């Protein structure tokens, strides 16, 4: 039986080469797209799954009502939380804290090493991701130490572990273990470990970990510094809900005093580590997390693509059934059972699916590199074929797809009445026609939705990139500020700047402690004098100098800029009476602090918290808002301080030349002669800022890719379907010709009926897409307004593709001689 099936299948394929090729190719591309999406989705949803006992691993998050009415969730918590939890609850097996370097050491510093051959390697910590971490971190999270002992590597103060890459940078081929890096030329830091490159799918990404014990011992008992990520591992079998229910009394025990003083509430929660990447959208996330919605969206696209391919297959096979009707009629007359016939068709269908899957496996293997490059992640590798899940999926797909997609044509075909078929009089049942129309409408709808969706994603993306940021992003070069400095730095800096400014290619140089392109890490509350303590509003705090406005070309709206004399007027003791300190704010801060107009804010004294103290300061100027972060986020309310140079990490150099390279060389030269111990490292502000769009870029690329694939598959199907429609209606068209229809009329009959289907699809797809896209756009504070074109264009595109794909067949039918088709049999 099977051999017979096989023989016939082979003959059918050879006889219908084009049809078989379209079918196999369409399915293969569909399966390829589906596999790529599945791999991507798996990658995203398996974030942090590889840590030991990951099911018992939690992050302790901090929810509070400080300076607001309702709770806000913060990913970071106080440094004292971990130790206190371990002490108070037996369920807590171990804890580890992680804190970003700029939080605990505002000023950047330089690490250096002098190799055996005398070369001195130096690098600014600004250029690496540096965290302070408890030693337990190495036990709780999987960080593979290539060298060093995970039990002690981060125990002692001033010990660090570094990534392979950092090790290579400093040590080349030397063995880094137990060697010292020199921080700021005077403090040795011992390397006790080198870790293997971290996988891409973890929310914890770092180049250097410094032992937590390096920080002041007071840190362990600090309850007013919610900037530390606290992770705990619970004893196996612990119900996190039960432990959470004990947290209120725990927070009361340690935080009641401060909560009363500032009049706010707190709530701690346990957040499974493996949920962080997709489900956590708190303040102070360690990195921007993905959204589950986006992932679900991709899952749907994956299903759609495979659906389109299967619909193609169904449509094409049913279409082909007309031609094969003859064969069926003959077989039935000869007495082959209906069952055997269905068997034959299903067999063919499964074989086609099987061939398609083989090609898909080949395609995916070939696409490993380009796909990884496209998304900028190592998602695909040959190793994926070692995972049996993928094979189960594929086998399921072959069988299910083959049988489901084969069943419809099989039953249609085997149901033909032999006599009718032999007479060449083959009527399609009305139901069959309707069914196929529904399938085609489904396909068109999906295609239109995909194109429109992609179009909107792309528009939003280019909108964000094209939008004015409110400052000069193009001509600014960023250089790490010198870190190895002494009391002469102010003069040295002045001299350095003056020398550079003598060069006409350099406009101005600003010093700041942050640059646009990421969230300002320093923030605290600010309030007007009459507002109670604890009811201030959160504002970011940025240290700048008087060159900031000019360098960034930010507009001063009212008041005046900082001047040298304003420097160091702050009252570091926090005595509230003085109020001599001067600050500037931006428009957003003016509004948030509660001034009705910026003019009202000017000259007002406000109270700003900073470094645990209250400062009464005067607003001397209000500047225009600018985009500190990507346009995903709203304007950041910012309070600007003019501290001494010690507070700055970056130099922003405004250039007015196209001769960038030689100017950089000049700057480098000067920098090295003034600050020989600091490494010179530069980057362009624009590049740096655009890094924020990497996730968006990735998403839009993936959408583009799959929309193109979907359209391609749908086109293949349309091409086949167009042939089918033309074939099915050949007789009718010939009759019409005989009745006097002109050639153009006949030519456009089929395209016209297809157009109707396209418009029905548009009616379905456009509202749905509009709804989903509006939802998606709410993720962005600054978004494109959707316009009609975003929907009309995809509709037109699909229309054109549909027309082009049926035109050849229509043309053929138009040109046939009716005499050949209207002979009486």
């Amino acid at each position: 039986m099977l051999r017979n099936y096989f023989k016939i299948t082979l003959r059918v394929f050879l006889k219908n080469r084009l049809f078989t090729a379209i079918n196999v190719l369409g399915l293969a591309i569909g399966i390829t797209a589906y596999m790529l999406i599945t791999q991507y989705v798996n990658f995203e949803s398996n974030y942090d799954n590889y840590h030991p006992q990951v099911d018992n691993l939690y992050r302790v998050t901090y929810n509070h009502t400080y300076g607001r009415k309702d709770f806000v969730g913060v990913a970071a918590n106080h440094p004292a939380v971990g130790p206190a939890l371990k002490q108070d609850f037996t369920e807590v097996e171990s804890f580890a804290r992680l804190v970003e370097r700029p939080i605990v050491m505002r000023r950047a510093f330089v690490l250096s090493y002098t190799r055996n051959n005398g070369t001195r390697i130096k690098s600014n910590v600004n250029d690496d991701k540096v965290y302070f971490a408890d030693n337990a971190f190495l036990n709780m999270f999987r960080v593979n130490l290539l060298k060093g002992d995970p039990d002690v590597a981060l125990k002692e103060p001033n010990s660090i572990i570094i990534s392979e890459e950092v090790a290579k940078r400093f040590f080349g081929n030397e063995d880094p273990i137990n060697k010292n890096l020199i921080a700021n030329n005077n403090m040795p830091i011992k390397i006790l470990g080198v870790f293997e490159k971290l996988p891409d799918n973890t929310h914890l990404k770092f180049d250097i970990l410094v032992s937590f014990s390096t920080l002041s011992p007071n840190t362990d008992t600090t309850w007013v510094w919610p900037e530390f990520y606290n992770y705990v591992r619970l004893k196996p079998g612990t119900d996190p809900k039960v432990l959470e229910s004990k947290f209120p009394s725990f927070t009361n025990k340690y935080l009641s005093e401060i909560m009363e003083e500032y009049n706010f509430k707190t709530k701690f929660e346990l957040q499974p580590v493996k949920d962080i990447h997709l489900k956590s959208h708190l303040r102070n996330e360690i990195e921007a997390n993905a959204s589950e919605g986006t992932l679900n969206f991709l899952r749907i696209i994956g299903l759609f693509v495979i659906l389109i391919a299967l619909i193609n297959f169904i449509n094409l096979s049913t279409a082909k059934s007309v031609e094969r009707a003859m064969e069926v009629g003959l077989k039935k007359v000869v007495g082959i059972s209906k069952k055997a016939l269905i068997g034959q068709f299903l067999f063919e269908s499964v074989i086609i699916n099987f061939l398609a899957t083989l090609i898909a496996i080949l395609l995916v293997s070939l696409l490993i590199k380009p796909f990884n490059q496209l998304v900028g992640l190592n998602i695909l590798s040959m190793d994926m074929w070692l995972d049996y899940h993928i094979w189960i999926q594929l086998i399921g797909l072959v069988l299910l797809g083959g049988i489901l997609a084969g069943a419809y044509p099989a039953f249609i075909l085997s149901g033909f009445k032999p006599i009718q078929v032999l007479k060449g009089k083959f009527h399609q049942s009305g139901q069959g026609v309707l069914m196929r129309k529904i399938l085609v409408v489904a396909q068109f709808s999906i295609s239109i939705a995909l194109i429109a969706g992609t179009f909107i994603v792309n528009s939003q993306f280019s909108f964000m990139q094209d939008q004015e940021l409110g400052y000069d992003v193009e001509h600014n070069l960023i250089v790490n500020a010198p870190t190895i400095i002494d009391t002469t730095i102010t003069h040295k800096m002045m001299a350095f700047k003056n020398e550079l400014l003598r060069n006409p290619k350099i406009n101005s140089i600003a010093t700041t402690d942050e640059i646009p392109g990421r969230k300002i890490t320093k923030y605290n509350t600010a309030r007007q004098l009459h507002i109670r303590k604890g009811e201030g509003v959160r504002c970011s705090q940025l240290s700048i100098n008087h060159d900031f406005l000019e360098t960034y070309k930010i507009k001063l709206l009212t008041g005046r800029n900082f001047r040298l004399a304003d420097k160091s007027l702050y009252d570091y003791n926090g005595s509230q009476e003085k109020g001599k300190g001067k600050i500037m704010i931006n428009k957003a801060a003016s509004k948030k602090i509660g001034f009705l107009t910026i003019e009202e804010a000017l000259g007002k004294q406000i109270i700003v918290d900073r470094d645990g103290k209250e400062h009464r300061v005067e607003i001397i100027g209000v500047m225009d808002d600018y985009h500190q972060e990507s346009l995903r986020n709203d304007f950041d309310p910012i309070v600007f301080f003019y501290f001494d140079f010690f507070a700055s990490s970056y130099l922003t150099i405004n250039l007015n030349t196209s001769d960038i390279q030689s100017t950089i060389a000049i700057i480098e030269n000067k920098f090295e002669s003034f600050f020989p111990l600091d490494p010179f490292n530069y980057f362009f502000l624009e590049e740096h800022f655009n890094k924020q769009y990497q996730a968006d870029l990735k998403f839009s690329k993936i959408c583009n890719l799959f929309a193109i694939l979907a359209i391609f598959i749908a086109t293949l199907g349309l091409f086949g379907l167009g042939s089918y429609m033309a074939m099915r209606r050949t007789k009718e068209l010939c009759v019409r010709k005989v009745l006097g229809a002109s050639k153009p009329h006949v030519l456009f009959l089929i395209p016209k009926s297809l157009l109707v289907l396209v418009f029905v699809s548009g009616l379905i797809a456009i509202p749905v897409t509009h709804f989903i896209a509006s939802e998606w756009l709410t993720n962005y504070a600054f978004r494109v307004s959707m316009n009609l074109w975003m929907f009309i264009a995809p509709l037109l595109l699909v229309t054109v593709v549909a027309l082009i794909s049926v035109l050849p067949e229509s043309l053929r039918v138009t040109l046939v001689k009716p005499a050949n088709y209207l002979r009486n049999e």
Partner: protein
Amino acid sequence: MLLQIKDLFKWVNSGGNRIFLLNDIELTVNEGDFISIMGPSGSGKTTLLNVIGMLDDFNEGEYSFLHEPVHKLKEKHRANLYKEYIGFVFQSYHLIDELTVYENIETPLLYKNYKSSERKSLVADMLDRFNIVGKKDLFPTQLSGGQQQIVGIARALISNPKLILADEPTGNLNSKQGEEIMNLFKQLNDEGVTIIQVTHSEKNATYGSRIINLLDGRIINTV
């Protein structure tokens, strides 16, 4: 004289051999004729009818229709000619399944730019004439074979042709239905419509005024 065919040949080439489908046809048809073409299967009856109806071309010879030299005309002109003067009736009716009886009959008018009101009254006349008013909203598959052929004839007549070409119009009908159709043709012929039909039935041939016998693409005698 409605049409005249002189020394007409039609052939196909098959494997180096020239196979004649129509061989040296001479035929004159006058207005008001009722001609029956007879002959064994494969003798070229349908081919001849298609040539007369200008649905098919020929290789050699002359064919003039209402004094227009068909063999010299451009295709468009030829199409206009048959559109205007010829109605076709087929053995398997060739109604359009997706259209109702009414719409099927109306179709030829659509291609001749009749106004909607004109179309309405012409179709209504036709429905009346063939007694199928009650069936106007049915689809072809809902009708019996005889009824379908009546619709087919109605459709052929709607644009008031001078010539009706009918290829085995009763081939798929029982004898009673066939008789009905033949009476209809007789009546039409009496009203002045020229008819050329292909038939296998001697009885049906007697309705006509003249019989042409075909064998292997040749006319063997004219009665």
